[in-house]
């Protein structure tokens, strides 16, 4: 910025006022897109897929539908991709489509305490906004509601100044969600059609990479942790040769050279228990939120506001809080909000309350974790632990850990001499980035794995052909940032993970020592079997007996030694 030193004209309050104006959230996030996970082209691709898949899964589960999702990624040009995600969800009514896909902070999940993948209603609109910003393209949505004859086709953009959707196309069409399964040999199966569902298509600047931070990995982990999900993933990359002459989509599609497709089959035909919604627990409510809740309450008195709007506050607790805060239980809650909320907040913190109900959580469950791991990770030993629900700062949460140990050398992806792979999940969403900053990773490194028979460099991950799955289910997952990549280091949470990991570790050590014993027996057996024939041969040469006797000696000796030395 070039500064002009010569104009020391002082700003007046009036001139400054002219420059002051509201900043729309859309504008804010446009300038701070890293906060939402769009900081690099390759991460943008992953984030877009992730937000769309999360939404689809949430929608299907809420509607009680076994989810079937198609993810198609097509490379249009060197740095331009089309991301298309289709589901068999309940569909979206026409009026809501623009707001869901082209307005930030719009959604059903922010205002309630209920366990779900999405929380704030930013993700999918942000993906659309990112596409719009980098390519100018609109977000294209197709949605068919169950029972309706036609589907809606819409193309929307976001007015970043006003944080309002702008509708570019709007029409009725006879679209149906269709999924193209691929069997294990890579051959296409019969297309699967549904009568309802939603498809979203975003064209964006992006880059595709393979490996641990890739879309591939994200989808695979999704399949592990959602064994009730069936997902069809198709990836079409452009060849290195520039297909510059291609005009229109058809020509570009033809110039793609590398296309691959895979279906992650459903392993469990039962939807997870639907989580129930709960009211906030007073201990988890911060002062600002407390004020807001008091302002917006339908209750007439402070006492009834406390008992009806919060969980675990009965008449007696409400009176106790009021007394401690020195407030009249019959006071008007709106007035309290303005003037005495601080005293109330303090009193709440000091009052002993029952812990929040924990039946609002829907963990994956030990059986489902095992099913998911067995489905996607070839290993020799699997174990899983789901802990009882716990509470941090008034928020119920539940922790789960799964473990898959492959025989060294049997799973190419799991090196025996490499650190174990840690798969992190929050409300069933895979977390790929920021592993080092995540409380779950810390919980793994803090456990002493040597006790359980694994090597572990000081302060590091254990070493071995193993995958550790960690899942945190909560009505409010404490992420370290809005891009939702790592969970915060709350001691209550870490402690639960530690216990779960230790329990899995104990199972692992039982398995490992049994395997070591077996290997030892095997080694001894082959050692014995190596030398017994020589003993028999020596005897045969001295005593000059026949082969029948020689065989008898070998057999008898084998039995004798087996009895005393290979006692399994």
């Amino acid at each position, binding site marked *: 910025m070039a500064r002009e030193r010569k104009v020391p004209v002082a700003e007046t309050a009036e001139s400054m006022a002219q420059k002051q104006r509201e900043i729309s959230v859309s504008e804010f996030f446009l300038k701070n897109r890293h906060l939402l996970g769009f900081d690099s082209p390759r991460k943008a691709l992953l984030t877009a897929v992730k937000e769309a898949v999360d939404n689809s899964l949430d929608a299907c589960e809420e509607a009680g539908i076994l989810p079937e999702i198609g993810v198609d990624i097509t490379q249009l040009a060197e740095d331009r991709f089309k991301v298309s995600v289709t589901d068999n969800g309940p569909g979206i009514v026409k009026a809501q489509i623009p707001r869901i896909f082209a307005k930030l902070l719009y959604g059903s999940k922010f205002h309630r305490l209920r366990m779900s993948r999405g929380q704030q209603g930013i993700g999918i609109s942000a993906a659309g906004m990112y596409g719009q910003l980098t390519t100018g393209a609109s977000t294209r949505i197709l949605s068919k509601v169950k029972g309706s004859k036609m589907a809606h086709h819409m193309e929307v953009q976001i007015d970043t100044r006003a944080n309002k959707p702008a509708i570019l196309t709007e029409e009725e069409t006879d679209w149906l969600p269709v999924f193209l399964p691929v069997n294990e040999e890579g051959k296409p199966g019969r297309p699967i059609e549904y009568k309802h569902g939603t498809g979203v298509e975003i064209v964006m600047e992006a880059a595709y990479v393979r490996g641990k931070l890739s879309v591939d990995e994200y989808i695979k982990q999704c399949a592990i942790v959602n064994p009730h999900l069936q997902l069809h993933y198709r990836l079409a990359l452009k060849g290195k040769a520039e297909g510059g002459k291609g005009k229109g989509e058809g020509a570009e599609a033809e110039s793609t050279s590398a296309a691959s497709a895979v279906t992650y089959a459903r392993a469990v035909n039962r939807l997870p228990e639907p989580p129930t919604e709960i009211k906030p627990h007073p201990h988890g409510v911060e002062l600002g939120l407390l004020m807001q809740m008091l302002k917006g309450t339908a209750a007439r008195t402070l006492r009834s506001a406390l008992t009806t709007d919060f969980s675990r506050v009965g008449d007696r607790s409400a009176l106790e809080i009021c007394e401690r805060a020195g407030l009249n239980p019959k006071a008007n809650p709106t007035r309290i909000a303005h003037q005495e909320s601080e005293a109330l907040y303090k009193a709440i913190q000091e009052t002993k309350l029952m812990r929040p109900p924990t039946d609002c959580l829907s963990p994956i469950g030990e059986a489902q974790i095992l099913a998911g791991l067995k489905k996607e990770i070839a290993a020799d030993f699997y174990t899983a632990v789901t802990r009882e629900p716990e509470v941090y700062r008034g928020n119920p949460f539940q922790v789960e850990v799964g473990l898959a140990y492959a025989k060294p050398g049997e799973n190419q992806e799991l090196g025996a001499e490499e650190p174990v792979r840690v798969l992190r999940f929050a409300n069933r969403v895979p977390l790929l980035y920021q592993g080092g900053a995540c409380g779950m990773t810390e919980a793994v490194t803090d456990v002493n794995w040597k006790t359980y028979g694994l090597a572990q460099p000081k302060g590091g991950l254990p070493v071995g052909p193993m995958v550790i799955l960690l899942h945190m289910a909560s009505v409010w997952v404490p992420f370290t940032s809005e891009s939702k990549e790592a969970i915060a280091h709350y001691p209550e949470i870490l402690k639960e993970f530690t216990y779960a990991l230790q329990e899995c570790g104990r199972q692992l050590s039982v398995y490992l020592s049994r395997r070591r014993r077996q290997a030892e027996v095997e080694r001894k057996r082959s050692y014995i079997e190596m*030398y017994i024939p020589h003993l028999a041969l*020596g005897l045969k040469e001295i005593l000059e007996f026949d082969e029948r006797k020689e065989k008898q000696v070998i057999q008898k000796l084998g039995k*004798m030694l087996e009895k005393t030395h290979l006692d399994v």
Partner: protein
Amino acid sequence: MAKSASQGGGMDVVSKKAASARIVRVAETVYEDIAKKNRKPSMKFPVRSLANVKYDIKRGHFEILNRVATRTLSYNTVKTFAQSMRLLATTKNDLLDKDDIAGKREIYYNSKSWGECRFNEQPESDTLLDDMEAMLEINREQLGYIPEEHGGEVCGPLVVVDRDPATGKDIRIDCTKLGTGAWSIPSRVEHLRFQSKAKFVLVIETASLFQRLVHHRYYEKGSCILISMSGVPTRACRRFIRRLADDQKLPVLAFTDGDPYGYCNIYRTLKVGSGQAAHINRFFCVPQAHYLGVTPWDIKDFKLEDATHPLEEADIKRAKDALKNDPFIRHHKEWQQALEHMLALGVRVEQQAFAKHGLNFVLEEYLPRKLKKAHFLP
């Protein structure tokens, strides 16, 4: 010093047939255990170590006690057991029954055809050979195993009567007419006969000192038979000295380096045998031997203080170990005094140290003075 007429006649002679039959008997016992008695076979060996010998004063050597080790077939012994059995088979079929001979190293290489049962290093097969001779109570020479080590060299007023292996005719070897060389002791000495006018036998540790004495024809001046051992004397060397001394009724004097190894290993083994070969010491020892030097007191007597080397860790350990565990040392106060004196001095002295006073001091001064004084260690 009296010419001792210690007893100890010819060795137990076992015919090859009888030896072969003993092997068959061992194998039969093993086979019966397995096939008939349905139990794990075992083999018994006399324990071969210093802990299982006593110093038999009357006979003048280490006599084996009756401690027996049993090797029962198990996971840990299966390999050794198999190797022993194959070694027994080879000994019987290839050596005894075919009237052949083999060196220890040859038998080690022979095992390379046994596949995974082969010996990886020669010490493994050597140990099993020792086990075998102890178990069969037949020394390995009679089983057809010939030692590869140098047997020792002889020079001086002695005629050895040997046999021509082809014709069986006598061959007379005059050990004064060997030019600048010496006569090598063969691996088997039982058939040799002797004629000698010497007054005693002088057994020397190092080859270089032996060469010096031979070069200056010390055997004439001292009227003695010179024998070089080159370290711990081999069985053949011990047996040769024993037979010579018995036959010609000659005293034997030993001249080694003045260090714990020279005392406790070389001289002790020469005189009374070793723990390792406890089962056959009665043939391979020279009870009439006495120790001439170099004693720890010689250091002062011959002003060798500045021609010594400090005792090394291993020397000290060896001396202390002998004082504690060696039945021979524990029997003889003088040897205990010698070792304790050496430990107190903290030095050792070599045979060659006398060169300090001139190269030929050892034969012109040391030996004559020691022989005149005639005070030897037992």
